[in-house]
């Protein structure tokens, strides 16, 4: 898995490539923590090139969601393929995470003031 982080103002976009499992999720967790600690409160995870996610990856996302909620930040996800979407659907995390089709829609929807 590779993560490219693009920061601008208080928003960070994560471009994630590859598989998110028990092996890779610590790296995602660390990247999320670092970003939140830097004070960025709006995080968009672009899933365009994510090929796989399991419960270790989902747990990491839920952790990130909780941390951001505490600081009145937001986490959004976009550009999931059908296979990834299915995993969110089955685990009913579709209702918990804000999931968008495109990066633009997601970015425009951050509730900044």
């Amino acid at each position, binding site marked *: 898995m590779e993560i490219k982080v693009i920061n601008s103002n208080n928003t960070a976009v994560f471009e994630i490539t590859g*598989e998110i499992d*028990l*092996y890779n999720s610590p790296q995602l967790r660390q990247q999320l923590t670092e970003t939140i600690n830097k004070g960025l409160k709006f995080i968009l995870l672009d899933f365009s090139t994510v090929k*796989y996610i399991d419960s270790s990856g989902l747990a990491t996302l*839920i952790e990130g969601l909780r941390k951001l909620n505490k600081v009145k930040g937001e986490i959004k996800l976009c550009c999931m393929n059908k296979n990834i979407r299915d995993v969110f659907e*089955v685990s009913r995390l579709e209702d918990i995470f804000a999931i968008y089709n495109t990066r633009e829609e997601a970015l425009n929807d951050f509730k900044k003031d």
Partner: protein
Amino acid sequence: MNSLFQDDVITISVASNPRFLTLIRCMVFNTALLLKFSEKISREIMLAVDEAITNVIKHSYNQCYEKEIIVSLHLKNDRLEIHIRDYGKKTDPSCIKSRDLNDIKPGGLGVFFIRKIMDHVEYDTSPEEGTLLKLIKYKTDCGPSPAGGHNGD
């Protein structure tokens, strides 16, 4: 489909290191495809096995990465049977439960996926050392009725 697969068993022995999960996944996915499961179901079986091995690494082996895991894939005409053997800490199978989906917290989804996806899930702790987890997925119309499918969950 004829009885070509009746006796085929594929066995993989691998260290309990999360970096090898990806290898087991491609093996399981392609084996399910060979058995003519749909791509969607094959992907689900792959996820269930990934979760089961993740749990062996985390719970049976306490994140110790140098222990042995043996995965065997039993190709049957009506089903794919997957055995996951570890030599780690045993747990009372009745304690291995998925969490309530409404309780949003990190963790606790692995067992949910395993039971949701597979038709039969059996933790056999009778071996002297460790556990043998048996997972079964039936081909459509060969398995138990949907109502009885997610056994004991």
